[in-house]
């Protein structure tokens, strides 16, 4: 097989694709290392994931208190909240991160007395702004969708609405607990303690909402 034939053959195409994907991940890792973005992205993920869970917890408990029996109302409200939080995360994080990165790049250019456009630093700044936007937008959507799943299943007839409330609350509290465990792992401290704290935030929200509902 000649070199040209090998390029066009399926194994050749797959090989080149794998090479490109590997190069992309290597570059991504380098960008994250250069900009020291990983801890910042972790913060974005936890903070907005927590926001997503708590927002949906509020919607679900509120719906329970007023006795919403139509799952489509909760699904629509939940998806609306997902969309708003996702877009807010994407635009907010992109603009904030980009402004900070541009400022850093310009300071560096002043120090070095050279133009850094076209350098790996400039590329990394552009990339991590998008990366931050993705993490910031996706994390609340992910955690919020977890809470909506039982109501989507109710729409398909899998769950009764009141069962969906219970399952959804359990899933949301489990998500909050998991975020706490992850935080504990990051802090290299007692993971269960961190999990208990984030779980307590959810329990407090439910309790306060129920008390207000009773009044």
């Amino acid at each position, binding site marked *: 097989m000649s070199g040209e034939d090998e390029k066009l053959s399926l194994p050749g195409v797959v090989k080149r694709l794998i090479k490109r994907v590997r190069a992309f991940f290597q570059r991504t890792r380098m960008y994250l290392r250069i900009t020291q973005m990983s801890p910042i992205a972790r913060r974005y993920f936890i903070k907005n994931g927590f926001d997503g869970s708590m927002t949906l917890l509020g919607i679900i408990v509120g719906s329970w208190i007023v006795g919403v029996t139509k799952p489509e109302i909760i699904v629509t409200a939940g998806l609306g909240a997902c969309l708003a939080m996702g877009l807010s995360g994407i635009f907010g994080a992109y603009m904030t991160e980009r402004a900070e990165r541009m400022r850093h790049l310009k300071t*560096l250019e002043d120090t070095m007395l050279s133009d850094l456009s*076209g350098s*790996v*630093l400039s590329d990394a700044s552009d990339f991590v702004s998008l990366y931050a936007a993705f993490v910031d937008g996706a994390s609340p959507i992910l955690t919020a969708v977890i809470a909506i799943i039982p109501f989507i299943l109710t729409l398909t007839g899998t769950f009764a609405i009141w069962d969906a409330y219970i399952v959804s609350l359990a899933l949301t509290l489990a998500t909050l607990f998991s975020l706490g465990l992850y935080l504990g792992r990051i802090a290299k401290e007692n993971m269960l303690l961190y999990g208990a704290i984030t779980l307590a935030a959810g329990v407090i929200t439910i309790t306060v909402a129920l008390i207000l509902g009773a009044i």
Partner: protein
Amino acid sequence: MIKRLVLDVLKPHNPSVVELSEALSHLEGIDGVNVIIYEIDQQVENVKIIIAGTSIDFENIKKRLKEMGATIHSVDEVAAGNRIVEEVGTPQDKSARM
């Protein structure tokens, strides 16, 4: 054919010297790279880069350094030709120091 090149380079802290040396060592015609930090500032650091190879393309080196956000302050030594000629001491060096 350049076989050895010694450069005085100013670079940001990131990409690190590890990434910089790896990036340079992957260039064609280069056998080895040595990067030594000799001054660290708040945002930047000065490094001495020694590059050895069979056929070093200086333009490629400049391009790769620019890509990595670094700038060449000075070219301190170049060894070219079939054989690397080392620096030798001469009486003039001694008189110049006096």
